[in-house]
Structure formats: structure tokens, C-alpha cells
């Protein structure tokens, strides 16, 4: 072939082609092709395990999250939390590079532990892995034992560690793995026969809403239940601006976490984000072990309060009864703006169950329900919720599908709104429906992570956000003659 014959010119995409394809990607035909995908994942609604591990680590007093792996991974996790919470997220990595692939990561780990221990003075370092050590098969147990024997950290210094391979599960599983390791480490040898702290241990799960943590604590205070909120990120990621930077502004006190093994009741309100942890707790913790769904909506909050009241022999206080009444009042007052509306939902399993519960309570339809990393068990549980309500009829569940699948659903079988996180904003805009950012991460709105979604107050908050947005849309889009004073 001559050089001239090989010349290819720069081409522009013709406008009519753009128009044609723009219409085509909204079609049933496209949806079928899209759902036939076997290998390509587009706009997944989940991150990798280490991100969840880091969130759990930030929830403990004086704890420095420590990434065993490439430094780039640590920067990605940190910046994700920085953007969502608009808060610092101090964490280190041991900066493994090519030579780590050849010799393993022990030298990096040891040097990293020595430096981080000396410079950042954490009370605990929570170690978790990114891809590289997982692929080359680093043996953390031995590495850490060697670090202690070399005197890099004291023999009794807490160094929980979790294998959190990114090619398995999601951030939710990483949270579970890290929390489990932290509890195993801190409670080791702390179980005392016959001792009972009289306290509730509460696991909130991978929940990046600091308002929720504060709400749990407020509710428990109202009832008068002493408690240890495990992996409590409420101060870590919502610290005051007063002119002083604190690397470790909060978190569950390590002593309380250690003593949690002697608790009266251990309750997880995030069964999917604490499966392994809770399984281990059942075998090892004293007292009662209870698992229940995240308290979204009135009925699930009722269930939480009744369980707590029963287990601790307390009466539900008048203040919470009144709060319940106000929530029901708010829901009744606002029901007409949400009843029958169709929603598309995506997110982590525990949150998804919460959204569905709340919407069904309001007479709204959780129409497309999508989890991009879910199980058959989740599907069954969601289906049972749908089956138990007339508003669940015709609603569908999509497990292990992504947001590009959901876009096809929005375009071929429209809804009134989407509930999810910031990543859904493109498809919501294409579908011309509002996106309610109740999930994680939220990169494009301020302070939403401070607005609790759980409990009675959370129900009021979600309801207010949703209904007022629908009313705004009506005001912004109706004809002049239908634009009126009252709504």
C-alpha cells in the first residue's frame, strides 16, 4: 500500500447520526442489547472492598487506616470520603511498587508501620489490602508477627488487618471484613465470665450519613439505654471548624469496643453490611444478638424501639411516642404528593430495603429496584416486601445490573423520580426526573450527609425532600393558568 492510499482523514460525526443514536439508546431494542451484555460493566453503583474497610477504620478512636498496597489506591479512597463528607480523611499506604511484585510487600509494610506509628501517633492502625498484595499473595499474618518481633510496634499494639480484595464483593464487604477484624483484635482476651456491661452494642453498617449515627445516639439517650455505637463515624466525619485540626476527632472509644464482647445486647441494623461480623459476634459475644433491617420508615423504627424497650426493660418514652405521631402526621399531610408515584432505586442492600419499606409505607411504588452487587437472599427479601403491599405490584428487582441498565429502564418504562447517589445524575437528567441523593456518595450537594434518614425524623426528612421537589416541579412546569397560591 502506498503512503497516499493509507491516508485517512479526520471525520466529524454527522448531526443526524447523533440524533439517530440518541433516540436509539432510549429504545426497547437498545434495552435488549444492553441487557444482553456479558462482560462490559457500565456505571456500576458500587466501589471496591478497601473503601468500606477505610470507613470502618475511621469509626474507631485514634485509628489510622493503613492501606497495604499501591499509594494511588489510598488517594482514591481518601478523596472519595473528602468529597462526600467535605471533611479530612487521614489514611496512609505503604506505597508498594514494582519491586513489591517481585519481593512481596513485607518491607513496605514494616517501613510504613514504623513511619506512620511514629509520625501520626495513632492508637490503632487498621490494615487492609488493595489489589497488588492480594494478587501476589502477601501473608499479612506473618508480616505483622514479624513487625512485632522486630520491635516496629509494641507486642500488644492493636493492628487489626483484613484481606479486602477488590476483585470480590464491594465496599460493603470490605466494611464487614475490617469491622470484624477490629472487633476480633480489640476484644481478644477481654471476655469475662459473668460480666455484663449492661450496654447495647449497635452496628450501623456501611452508612455514610453522619446524621444517622447522631440520630441513633439521640434515640438511645431518649430511651435511656447505655450503648456503644461500633464504628461511629459521626465525629470523625463531622468535626467542628474551630481553628484546630484534629487527625482523630472521634470514633468508638477503643476501651468500649474491647468491652463490647461483654455487652447485654448486640444489635446490627445493617444485616448485609455486617454478615460476617454478626456471625462471629453470635459465636463470641455475651448477651443477646439481634439483627434487624435499617430503621427507614415508621414500622421499622417501631420495631427497633420495641425491641430495645423489651431487651432493656424500658418503656418507650412519651417524647418518642410524640415524635412518632408527628412523623405519621407529616406523612398523612403529605401523602397526596407521593402516593402512586413510581420510583427507580439503586444502592447498597441495607439502604435499598430501607427505601422500599419507606416508599411502600407512603403508598408510592418502588418500581425499578437495582443493586449492582447483590445476592439471591437480597432479591428474595426485596420481593417479600413488594409482595406484602399492594403498591409493590408490578415492581421489579434487578440484581447485579448497573446504572447503564437502569438508564434503559428509565427510558423505556419511565418513573417519576430516582433515589440513589450522585452517580445517577446523568440518567436522571436524560429521563427528566429528579434524583434524590439519599445514598453514597454525594459529590454535588452540600450537607445532605448531615440529614438523618433513619427513625421517625428520618422519615419526615425524606418525605419533605421528596414531596417539596415534586411540588417545585409542578410550580416550575405548569401552565400559567394552573400556577396557583396553594399546593
Amino acid at each position, binding site marked *: 500500500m502506498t503512503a497516499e492510499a493509507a491516508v485517512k482523514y479526520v471525520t466529524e460525526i454527522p448531526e443526524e447520526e447523533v440524533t439517530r443514536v440518541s433516540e436509539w439508546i432510549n429504545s426497547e431494542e437498545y434495552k435488549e442489547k444492553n441487557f444482553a451484555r456479558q462482560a462490559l460493566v457500565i456505571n456500576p453503583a458500587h466501589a*471496591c472492598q478497601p473503601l468500606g474497610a477505610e470507613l470502618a477504620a475511621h469509626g474507631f478512636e485514634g485509628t489510622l487506616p493503613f492501606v497495604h498496597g499501591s499509594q494511588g489506591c489510598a488517594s482514591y479512597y481518601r478523596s472519595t470520603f473528602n468529597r462526600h463528607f467535605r471533611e479530612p480523611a487521614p489514611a496512609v499506604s505503604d506505597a508498594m511498587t514494582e519491586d513489591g511484585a517481585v519481593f512481596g510487600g513485607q518491607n513496605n509494610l514494616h517501613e510504613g508501620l514504623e513511619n506512620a506509628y511514629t509520625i501520626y501517633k495513632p492508637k490503632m492502625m487498621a490494615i487492609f489490602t488493595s489489589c497488588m498484595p492480594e494478587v501476589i499473595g502477601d501473608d499479612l499474618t506473618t508480616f505483622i508477627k514479624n513487625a512485632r518481633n522486630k520491635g516496629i510496634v509494641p507486642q500488644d499494639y492493636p493492628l487489626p488487618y483484613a484481606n479486602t480484595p477488590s476483585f470480590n464483593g464491594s465496599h460493603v464487604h470490605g466494611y464487614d471484613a475490617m469491622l470484624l477484624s477490629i472487633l476480633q483484635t480489640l476484644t481478644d482476651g477481654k471476655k469475662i465470665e459473668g460480666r455484663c456491661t449492661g450496654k447495647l452494642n449497635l452496628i450501623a453498617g456501611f452508612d455514610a450519613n453522619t446524621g444517622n449515627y447522631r440520630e441513633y445516639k439521640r434515640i438511645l439517650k431518649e430511651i435511656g439505654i447505655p450503648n456503644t455505637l461500633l464504628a461511629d463515624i459521626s465525629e470523625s466525619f463531622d468535626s467542628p471548624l474551630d481553628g484546630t485540626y484534629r487527625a482523630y476527632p472521634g470514633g468508638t472509644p477503643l476501651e468500649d469496643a474491647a468491652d463490647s464482647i461483654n455487652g447485654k445486647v448486640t444489635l446490627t441494623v445493617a444485616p448485609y453490611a455486617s454478615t460476617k461480623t454478626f456471625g462471629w459476634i453470635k459465636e463470641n459475644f455475651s448477651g443477646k444478638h439481634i439483627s434487624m433491617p435499617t430503621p427507614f420508615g415508621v414500622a421499622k423504627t417501631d420495631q427497633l424501639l420495641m425491641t430495645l424497650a423489651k431487651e432493656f426493660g424500658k418503656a418507650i418514652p412519651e417524647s418518642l411516642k410524640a415524635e412518632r405521631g408527628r412523623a405519621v402526621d407529616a406523612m398523612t399531610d403529605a401523602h397526596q404528593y407521593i402516593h402512586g408515584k413510581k420510583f427507580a432505586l439503586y444502592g447498597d442492600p441495607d439502604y435499598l430495603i430501607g427505601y422500599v419499606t419507606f416508599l411502600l409505607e407512603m403508598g408510592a411504588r418502588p418500581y425499578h429496584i437495582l443493586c449492582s452487587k447483590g445476592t439471591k437472599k437480597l432479591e428474595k427479601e426485596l420481593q417479600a416486601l413488594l409482595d406484602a403491599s399492594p403498591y409493590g405490584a408490578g415492581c421489579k428487582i434487578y440484581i447485579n445490573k448497573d446504572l447503564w441498565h437502569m438508564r434503559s429502564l428509565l427510558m423505556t418504562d419511565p418513573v417519576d423520580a430516582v433515589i440513589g447517589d450522585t452517580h445517577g445524575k446523568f440518567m436522571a437528567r436524560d429521563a427528566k426526573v429528579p434524583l434524590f441523593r439519599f445514598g453514597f456518595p454525594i459529590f454535588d450537594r452540600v450537607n445532605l450527609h448531615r440529614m438523618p434518614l433513619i427513625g421517625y425524623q428520618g422519615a419526615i426528612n425524606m418525605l419533605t425532600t421528596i414531596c417539596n421537589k415534586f411540588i417545585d416541579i409542578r410550580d416550575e412546569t405548569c401552565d400559567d393558568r394552573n400556577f396557583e397560591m396553594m399546593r
Partner: protein
Amino acid sequence: MSEKAKKKVEGITMESTQAMIDAAMEIYPDKAKKKRAPHLAPNAGEGACVKSNRKTVPGIMSARGCAYAGAKGVVWGPIRDMVHVSHGPVGCGWYSWGTRRNLVTGVNGVSQFAMQFTSDFQEKDIVYGGDKKLRTLLEEAHELFPLAKGISVLSECPVGLIGDDINSVAKTASKDLDIPVIPCNCEGFRGVSQSLGHHISNDTIRDHIIGTREFREPESPYDIALIGDYNIGGDVWSVKPLLEEIGLNVKAVWTGDGELEKIAATHTVKLNLIHCYRSMNYMCRVMEEKYGIPWVEFNFFGPTKIRESLRKIAEYFDDYIKERVEAVIAKYDPIMQAVIDEYRPRLEGKTVMLYVGGLRPRHTVNAYADLGMTVVGSGYEFAHGDDYERTSPEMPEATVIYDDASEHELEQFVHELRPDLIGSGIKEKYLFQKMGIPFRQMHSWDYSGPYHAYNGFPIFARDIDMAVNSPTWKLVNAPF
């Protein structure tokens, strides 16, 4: 010492800066101290006064990213008409999805693809390899996104570790699908920072893209390419019209709001204008050697540097361009002066510390000076010696220069220098705001922008004023 570096800051001497550095490192274990010491120094006014482009010290809380981040976030991601596949587990692509603000023109999913495409590796892909999966997903991407001009395959760590051959898969797929499929071996463990990812990507463009297309319209003596502008917050949309206003034809942009085929035809331009030297000087050198295209560095931050740069660019052209440049400067000077008149009184004498990436730690120094502010410390996450050589003359004498600074070092320097503003990244932002110090993100323009060129400066000035003088800072100390 060069003329420029004779700028002085009251109270800052070589001795005082060195003492500050020594104090910051007191806490370090010996080995870390030995490793970090050469990366921190007072500005000597010329040459690279710090060591750079070395491995990050484990455990020191570095802000650095990885080679993949440099490839996906910087070089490839901004090319709008390609599908960029993050090949490996789900995370890397998810974290870099829409988080660098390289804005693009077009219809999302139709003619531009600012989305997250991944092979979402599972355990079985690690064990059995991901080449087959890659082949299938390339076909699927081509079918679902028929207007995509090409596909890049950006390797994440596991791909290189398990020995997959993405180059061979890409080669076959490219032939079968009849579109460029570009394999980029930018695994995060390679090199010491984002920088190697830029270099690897440049090499990939050299090997697979450059010279494969030509512009249909006849060449003109004013054909140029804009290199190393990533359209953060719309920077390219501010720079391109200015270059056109001085009479140049911007034939291709690398890679902000970029188009694959135009990049492929860049070998026919007459001059390469490079803004981010760090990330793209490699390709400028390649095009110079292979096609004889000269290149010139320029700086479009703040009116002083814009003016200087426009005249420098004009030197490569005839009187027609030179006259237009003077006319453009004459047109914008009063507009810029009005901006300075508005903001300078509120910013005069204020100090700034910078810690950013590719070019900003030196390029923005004078934009602050235009507003009456002095940069009292500067450094880079992933620079090389030639970046520091270019930085020394811009910075005042004896001010602190830091390479791959740890959070501890920055915190100590800030405590000591108490600047009125810090310009750095998202990981640093909230730490310093908690200390009560105004901050602007200088990677992402803090979701504002553009900051480049004449259209950018008024926005830059407004944002800096807003950060420094926000009334909220007065509320930090409670009255009780």
C-alpha cells in the same frame, strides 16, 4: 542567583526555611528523615533545589496517585469521543469517574463517553486471566456505542501482575471492529506517581495514534495544537477562542474536550503550544524529532503571564500574528486592570502556599502576584527535576520548596508560615480549613473555572477573594 529570584519575603531567609524544614522532620525515624530531607529545601533561585521523582516513603501520608490515575484521569479520560475501559476490578474506574472535571462537549453515551466502563474483574478473572472477557467487552462497547471513535484499555494493577496480554487482544479487536483499540499498560504499581502514567500514555499515543489521520482542509502556516490543557472547568473553552483571536488555527487539543482523530492528525501542525509541560513534554519531543514540529511552553494564568506568553508565541509567526497579538493585548489589558482594581485592594500583601500537580505550583505564582499576593511555599506531587528548575526562578528567594510532601510536613510548614490562603487538593482542603485557613482546590478549581486565559482570570480573582475574605472565617473563634 537569577534576577527574578531576587524577590524577597520579609522574615524568610535560607536559614529560617532550613530551620523550619529541620523542625518538621524531627519526629521522623532516621531512615525516613534521610529519605525525605533531599525533597525539602529553601529556594536557591536557580536549578532544581530538591530531589524528585523518587519512590514515596511508605507510611508518610503522601497525596500522590498512581500511573493509572495519570493515564485515566489526565491523558485519556478527557478524550471525549472514545470509550475508556478501566480494565481490572471495579474500584479504580469508579473513583476516577467524573472526579477530575475534564468537561466535554457532546451527548453522553452517544457522542461523548464520560462514563465508567470497567471489566469489573472477579476472582475467576484473576485466576484464569481476563483476555477473553476483554475481547467480549470490546465487542459489546462497539455495538452499544457505535459512534465511539476508538476504545482505550487502561490496565489496573492485577492485569500486569497476572500476565494478561492486552496488547494482543487490542490488536486483533482493532482489526475486527475496524476502530482503534489502544492498549495502555498503566498499572498503578508502575513507577512512583501519576507521572509514569502520563509518560506511558504519551508513548501509547505515539505508537498507536499519531500520524494515523490527516486533516482534510489544506494546511496553513497558522496551524497549531494546544497540548497539555485538560479543560478543567472549561479551560480549553477559554484558551481556544483566545488563540483563534490572535489568528491561530487550533487544529487539535491534547486532550481536554479532545477528539481522537484530530489528535491523530496533529503531526501536520506548525507549532505545538504546551501548557502542562510535565504530562506531555514527551509527545512534543517526539513530534519535534519525528515531524520537525517546534514546541513552546506558555503560561495563561493571570494577565502578566498571558501577555508574556502571547508575545512569546507570536515570535514563531509572521507580522500578521504579531500585530494581532498586540491588538488583543491592548483590548484585554484594560479589562484585566479593572479586575485587578476591584480585587487587589482586598488581597494586597496576602500570602499563599501551593501544593499541586503538573504545572500550577509555578504557573500560578504570577497570577497571585497580579493580585498583590506572594507565594511563600510551593511544591509538586509528581514533578521531575526539570519542573523544579522552572520553579525556582518564579518563587521568591529562600521560600520553601517541597516535593511529594507528606501531610505532616505541610501541616508543620503551614503552622510556621500561617499563609492567608492554601491552594492544593481535596485531600488537603478540609485539614487546613479546620485550622481556620482559607483554601482553594487548585486541581479542580474547586468546582469553578475556567481559570485559564483572559476569560479565566476574572473568575480566578473572584474565587481567591471569596476564599480569603469570606465572612465565615470571622466566626471560627467562638466568643465564649
